[in-house]
């Protein structure tokens, strides 16, 4: 059996998304900027996709949707554009959080080097920032607030609507990285008072390398790739028509099936989460214990197993046919374990033993049963040969979890 339980990293494409993409690759070759029939047909389909995505997000108008190469580009663009607009008015203070995706954090690092003052809000042990924290941090010279909709490692959903309302009432621009949220929980840019939002197609069964930056009408967007007049002159380059159409189809499908999928996936998640917590002693759940979609993504299970290291866990799981991820230093390719786990207060030695299992509607209960059978044995096998576990069991070191 091979089980894919790493849907926060990426998802397999849906049948619909594949069909739409194949069809466009085969038949829809025209350049949307061309005036002849082939071009205009591609243009019509592109604009249809734009309108469809706008409607899925609750946007006021299709021209608030800008196509990008994915979540990272949307994040980079949103931050840079807002920073530039702020600087013109002498506003150089940017508020974000300690557990954003690197697409945000590394862009903020670059902006800090360029003279912006970046303030990263601390995250609570259960994985949240609050609107009150945001409000307290807002200053006269705040150019932007950027808070992720849902965290990619621990799955906590942030109080985006409250934060949006706070930002709106103070007249501060608000961006949210909704890459993990869109297609998984309800997102409505107008109700949420969002000015800019990033999404990425491959997280909801669409293709890789394509995404969206939503920019509310009236918010200035600086051109980010210069050249032709595509994307209203903001992002030049012939559009990736097949990928964009496929993304729109995948999003439509995900949004249409949202209530049904949320119920199905969260039931699987709870079974997996609770089963592993029960079967493996000295294991801690990362992020909130709340289960409703206003606080936690339907598909995310994030655990720390004491006394074992995440990369060996994930490799042993892979050998058993289970595909998951980890936030250990060895898997992040750096000296430090996941900044998200450190931000919620996990000590480094605990964060090294993390495992993230992310489910989607393509997973089954039989797969969950299989994981519940295999993973406890994998942890036990690694603990058996772990000198850290030995010290914990002999009482030489105290258990931390």
């Amino acid at each position, binding site marked *: 059996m091979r089980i894919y339980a790493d849907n926060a990293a990426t998802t397999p494409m849906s049948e619909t998304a594949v069909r739409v993409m194949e069809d466009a690759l085969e038949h829809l070759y025209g350049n949307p900027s061309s005036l002849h029939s082939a071009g205009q047909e591609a243009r019509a389909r592109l604009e249809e996709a734009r309108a469809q995505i706008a409607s899925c997000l609750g946007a006021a108008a299709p021209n608030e949707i800008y196509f990008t190469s994915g979540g990272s580009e949307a994040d980079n663009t949103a931050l840079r554009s807002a920073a530039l607009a702020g600087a013109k008015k002498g506003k150089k203070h940017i508020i974000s959080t300690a557990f954003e995706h690197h697409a945000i954090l590394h862009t903020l690092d670059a902006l800090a080097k360029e003279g912006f003052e970046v303030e990263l809000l601390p995250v609570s042990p259960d994985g949240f920032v609050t609107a009150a924290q945001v409000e307290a941090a807002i200053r006269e010279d705040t150019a932007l607030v950027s808070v992720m909709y849902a965290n990619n490692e621990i799955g906590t959903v942030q109080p985006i609507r409250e934060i949006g309302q706070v930002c709106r009432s103070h007249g501060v621009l608000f961006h949210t990285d909704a890459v993990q949220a869109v297609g998984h929980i309800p997102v409505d840019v107008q109700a949420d008072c969002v000015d800019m939002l990033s999404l990425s197609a491959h997280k909801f069964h669409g293709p890789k390398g394509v995404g969206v930056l939503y920019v509310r009408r009236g918010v200035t967007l600086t051109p980010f790739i210069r050249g032709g007049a595509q994307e209203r002159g903001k992002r030049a380059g012939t559009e990736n028509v097949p990928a964009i159409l496929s993304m729109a189809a995948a999003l439509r499908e995900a949004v249409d099936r949202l209530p049904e999928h949320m119920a199905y996936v969260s039931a699987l998640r709870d079974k997996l989460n609770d089963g592993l917590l029960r079967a493996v002693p000295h294991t801690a759940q990362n992020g909130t214990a709340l289960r409703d979609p206003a606080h936690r993504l339907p598909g995310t299970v994030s655990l720390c197993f004491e006394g074992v290291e995440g990369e060996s866990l994930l490799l042993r799981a892979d050998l058993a046919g289970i595909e998951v991820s980890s936030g*250990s230093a060895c898997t992040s390719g750096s000296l430090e374990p996941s900044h998200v786990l450190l931000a919620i207060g996990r000590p480094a030695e605990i964060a090294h033993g993390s495992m993230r299992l992310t489910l989607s509607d393509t997973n089954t209960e039989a797969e969950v049963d299989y994981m519940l059978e295999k993973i406890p044995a994998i942890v036990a096998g690694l603990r058996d*040969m772990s*000198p850290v576990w030995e010290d914990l069991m002999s009482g030489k070191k105290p258990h931390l979890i």
Partner: protein
Amino acid sequence: MLYSEKVMDHFQNPRNVGKMEDADGIGEVGNAVCGDIMKMYIKVKDGIITDVKFNTFGCGSAIATSSMATEMIKGKPIEEALQLSNKAVAEALDGLPPVKMHCSVLAEEAVRAAVKDYYDKHGIAYDPAQFCAGDCAHCHDHGEKE
């Protein structure tokens, strides 16, 4: 795959894994905060390492390098075990990704620490310069050590 077949073999079926009740020398190196700890046990007779066991907390290559290091010193004279270099361990595994070379360094240090413990416990004189200057417990750079 990130790792060679040899690394995966030693990760999947580590050799000489376990503890040793009557070890003549025990070396423990690394740090849980950094994500890897190796503990090596040796049994010595007439200057020969007759048996060796290890326990490791760490990533796939940490487990594989400890396993390979135990194979490379088992049955060898102590002087030879002290010659074991991290590069030799990595080469025996058909190479390691550059970010994982520190694991082979740790394996080399674990062997040395076990030998040093053996010398200390048995009152055998040695040149302290041969051994780790005391920074073994620090996080290693995940870069290549030449």
